[in-house]
């Protein structure tokens, strides 16, 4: 060490120590540097126990120091010193907390202004600097520390000061007293300024405005909170099932809100005008039978539900230029409304908003939920962070304890496995088994897709099925049953979100090929867009019906079987993965607001029949995963499907907004305006692509995963600490031995001098 350092150890003296010769740690005896102290001790250590230390170090097999004795058997004086160490007092003593927050406040204040070089205490070690030990030898009392903190708080702005106080781990009474003390000068200042007329008026006015805004903000917040009727339901779910299942329902709530917003947009821009100006129907309206609810065909065909109903002309056009044979019925004072353009722009805007929102929330969630280094230290993280305090029911609490115990045992078993070296053969065997299981599951998923393809081809080619309306329901039924039953076929993949995702993607891909590739070619005399829309409707309805049946009967039956036959009183687990994917599947099919039945059904089934899942689902990771699933396969797939349909596929000739055009969009499509002018709509697809593609990396750059790096490296500090503890211990051992030998010498005054010499040689 280059410079002398005065270091005060604030240790209360024991009664036993008084009256004896001054111990090395007394103030007057403390040397200016540790260097001398360590030199003395190391000389003694070299004579006595150096061999012992070396033997111990060899035994541990590492170059690191170890504590010579475990804490429990060290002398009480050492323990007292250890108890006063800053790293231990910060966890329990108020004075230490106050001094830590004093230093934090100082840092906060200094951050705003560039610190002077002379302010830095260069000789202080980083860990000491943090606790702001001054070089001044007088020890600080708690009141002094408090007054320092108060002074620092006074120099902060009000909002910052309140923020600082709120974050302090002190009791409310102490925070109140700190606040009172740090508030006084302001009153004095105001009193002094009382004479300055205009200034004080402005100040008071501004203060009153701020108060009014503050209370208005609070009132708005309270109003918003009053509008959340689902709060109690969510609390009950969290109390009974934990945070992981709660995150599924929060995801559901977000989807609902988003759908409501999009629905508003659609109604305002497309449905509303079309309802206000209904087109003339080509023939007599078909009679409504009950089957429309399932098939979507029949009397639903010519309603605003389906795309074919929408006019392809400009609504409410002035009668000057009749186009496309539309009827000339303008309303007085009305504005012309070009339906095809409106349709394209509204849907485009909806997709764009969805894209940006999804990408942004995905990036935000990723930044929140993934931390660097989160894969290491699983034992500590599991023990410290896995208890969910939201759980309020005894049975759920016991279940959580079971889960944690299982998890800890699994972690220990995995750790044991990693410790024992495995042969290459064993690892290869394990990899082969895993590969085989995955191949089987993938084969199942692809098999389902192939089955659907074959079946759909059969439906197209069979003439008798084409005529009946009920025959339209067969394909949705088959697909729905496969969706429901396939996870049970591949038991190893039960609960596996990736496998469920692959299955859904395979099925949707096959269906898209079936619609865009085959049906468009086949349906020459109908509006294929209407047919596709009705197919989507049928799929949704069938999915919903099957899910209801599964909820009401499937899980109930399973519960009865497991209770009676297998004599287990455990309810089936709530399969979060499958439920989330069902939700996203439904959302993808509609690309629009979808029925509330999807929302109510899982909740009722959950509360009646299920229990929380066994495997630990990390709630924050899950929301990121759900958003990613919503964005990448679902949204992107739907966007690609629509873009392909808009650009490449020829619109049908009948009754559609884009009829008789070569493509929906492009130079021959809607981009053509009567009069030959080419509108500037070509930027529209590029905006979509740029928005989606560019927004992603941009957001991810801003929200890179958070890291926590300690402000200084504590690894060397640990070595120093153990070294010092060992030295302290040897000092006290030495003292005790000298004490005993002195007592022994006074008792045996007539002892032969050889004995004394022996003692002194130690």
């Amino acid at each position: 060490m280059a410079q002398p350092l005065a270091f005060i150890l604030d240790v209360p003296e024991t009664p036993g120590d008084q009256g004896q010769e001054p111990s090395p740690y007394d103030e007057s005896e403390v040397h200016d540097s540790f260097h001398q102290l360590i030199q003395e001790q190391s000389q003694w250590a070299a004579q006595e126990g150096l061999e012992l230390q070396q033997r111990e170090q060899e035994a541990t097999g590492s170059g690191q120091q170890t504590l010579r004795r475990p804490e429990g058997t060290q002398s009480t004086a050492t323990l007292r010193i250890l108890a006063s160490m800053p790293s231990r007092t910060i966890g329990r003593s108020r004075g230490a907390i106050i001094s830590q927050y004093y230093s934090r406040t100082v840092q906060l204040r200094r951050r705003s202004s560039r610190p002077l070089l002379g302010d830095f205490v260069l000789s202080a070690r980083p860990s000491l600097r943090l606790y702001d030990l001054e070089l001044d030898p007088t020890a600080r009392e708690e009141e002094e520390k408090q007054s320092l903190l108060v002074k620092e708080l006074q120099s902060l702005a009000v909002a910052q000061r309140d923020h600082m106080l709120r974050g302090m781990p002190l009791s409310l009474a102490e925070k109140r007293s700190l606040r009172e003390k740090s508030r006084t000068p302001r009153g004095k200042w105001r009193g002094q300024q009382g004479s300055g007329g205009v200034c004080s008026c402005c100040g008071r006015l501004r203060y009153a405005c701020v108060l009014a805004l503050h209370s208005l903000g609070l009132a708005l917040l309270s109003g918003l909170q009053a509008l959340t009727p689902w709060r109690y339901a969510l609390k009950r779910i969290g109390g009974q099932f934990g945070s992981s299942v709660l995150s599924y329902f929060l995801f559901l709530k977000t989807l609902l809100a988003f759908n409501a917003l999009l629905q508003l947009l659609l109604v305002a821009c497309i449905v509303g005008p079309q309802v206000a100006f209904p087109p003339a129907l080509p023939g007599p309206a078909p009679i409504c039978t009950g089957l429309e609810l399932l098939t979507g065909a029949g009397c639903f065909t010519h309603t605003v539900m389906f795309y074919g109903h929408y006019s392809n002309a400009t609504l409410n056009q002035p009668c000057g230029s009749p186009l496309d044979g539309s009827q000339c019925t303008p309303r007085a004072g009305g504005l012309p409304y070009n339906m095809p353009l409106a349709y394209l722009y509204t849907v485009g805007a909806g997709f764009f908003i969805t894209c940006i929102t999804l990408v942004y929330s995905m990036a935000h969630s990723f930044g929140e939920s993934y931390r660097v280094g989160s894969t290491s230290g699983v034992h500590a993280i599991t023990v410290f962070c896995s208890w969910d305090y939201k759980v309020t029911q005894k049975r759920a609490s016991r279940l959580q304890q079971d889960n944690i115990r299982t998890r800890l045992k699994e972690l220990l078993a995995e750790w044991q496995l990693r410790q024992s070296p495995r042969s290459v053969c064993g690892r290869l065997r394990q990899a082969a088994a895993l590969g085989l299981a995955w191949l089987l599951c993938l084969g199942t998923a692809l098999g389902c897709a192939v089955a659907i393809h074959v079946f759909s081809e059969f439906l197209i080619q069979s003439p008798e099925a084409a005529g009946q309306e009920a025959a339209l329901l067969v394909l949705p039924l088959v697909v729905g049953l496969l969706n429901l039953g396939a996870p049970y076929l591949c038991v190893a993949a039960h609960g596996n979100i990736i496998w469920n995702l692959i299955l859904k993607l395979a099925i949707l891909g096959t269906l898209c090929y079936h619609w865009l590739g085959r049906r468009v070619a086949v349906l020459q005399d109908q509006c294929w867009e209407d047919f596709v829309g009705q197919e989507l409707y049928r799929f949704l309805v069938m999915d919903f019906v099957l899910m209801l049946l599964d909820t009401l009967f499937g899980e109930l039956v399973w519960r009865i079987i497991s209770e009676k036959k297998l004599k287990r009183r455990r309810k089936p687990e709530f399969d979060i993965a499958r439920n989330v994917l069902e939700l996203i599947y439904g959302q993808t099919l509609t690309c629009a607001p979808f029925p509330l039945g999807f929302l109510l059904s899982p909740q009722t089934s959950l509360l009646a029949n299920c229990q929380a899942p066994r495997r630990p689902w990390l709630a924050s990771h899950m929301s990121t995963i759900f958003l990613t699933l919503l964005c990448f396969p679902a949204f992107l797939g739907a966007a690609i499907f629509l873009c392909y349909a808009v650009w490449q596929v020829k619109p049908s000739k009948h009754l559609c907004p884009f009829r008789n055009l070569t493509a929906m969009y492009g130079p021959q499509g809607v981009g053509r305006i009567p009069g030959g002018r080419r509108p500037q709509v070509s930027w529209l697809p590029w905006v979509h692509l740029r928005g989606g593609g560019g927004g992603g990396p941009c957001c991810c750059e801003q929200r890179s995963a958070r890291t926590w790096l300690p402000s200084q490296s504590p690894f060397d500090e640990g070595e120093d600490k153990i070294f010092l503890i060992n030295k302290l211990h040897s000092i006290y051992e030495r003292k005790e031995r000298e004490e005993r030998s002195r007592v022994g010498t006074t008792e045996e005054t007539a002892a032969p001098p050889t004995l004394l010499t022996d003692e002194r040689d130690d």
Partner: protein
Amino acid sequence: MGGSGSRLSKELLAEYQDLTFLTKQEILFSVHVVLAPHLVDNEQQARSGNEHTGKPIAENTDSSPLSTRAHRRFCELLPQEQRSVEQSLLAQVPFEQILSLPELKANPFKERICRVFSTSPTRDSLSFEDFLDLLSVFSDTATPDIKSHYAFRIFDFDDDGTLNREDLSRLVNCLTGEGEDTRLSASEMKQLIDNILEESDIDRDGTINLSEFQHVISRSPDFASSFKIVL
């Protein structure tokens, strides 16, 4: 909720809002409970009926879901004669009654939570302000810093400022269940504690201090969302 205003003075309410992470609605709990005793009887009947489900009383009588929760729940724990606002602020409630709250009943750390937040000299009772502190730390908006600080104090069973092996073993027993068949075996416990210390004891002194604990907590993004008690 009716038209009754708060009996807690505005200054006191504003002060509580500034110094804790709670909103006004969460603080003002009991206003019409204090002013309308006939509703108290209904609530007591409702409470005895709903004890086993733990359904909070607020939903029966309160139309604004978030108003005055904390004070209401606290006043429910006091005997009738102490339910005026001034007295409720000064009264000390013994632990047994706090531990009977539905939000804490099933929590294995409930005794430690009460002990950590108690400022009474004998540390066996909570005042209203201690209760507010408790709710503030466990609320949605509290910083992870203050949550981890209090979590450390809750897990420090012997209150010596560090988590030693004994503390960790008691913590694991709370997590897995106290029964004989639910505990980990001695060898598993030893191995687990060794692993925990290996992973989190940076300075290798055999104990985990506050900084090391906060370092471990910062690696888990779930801690802040699981360290919550919803009133």
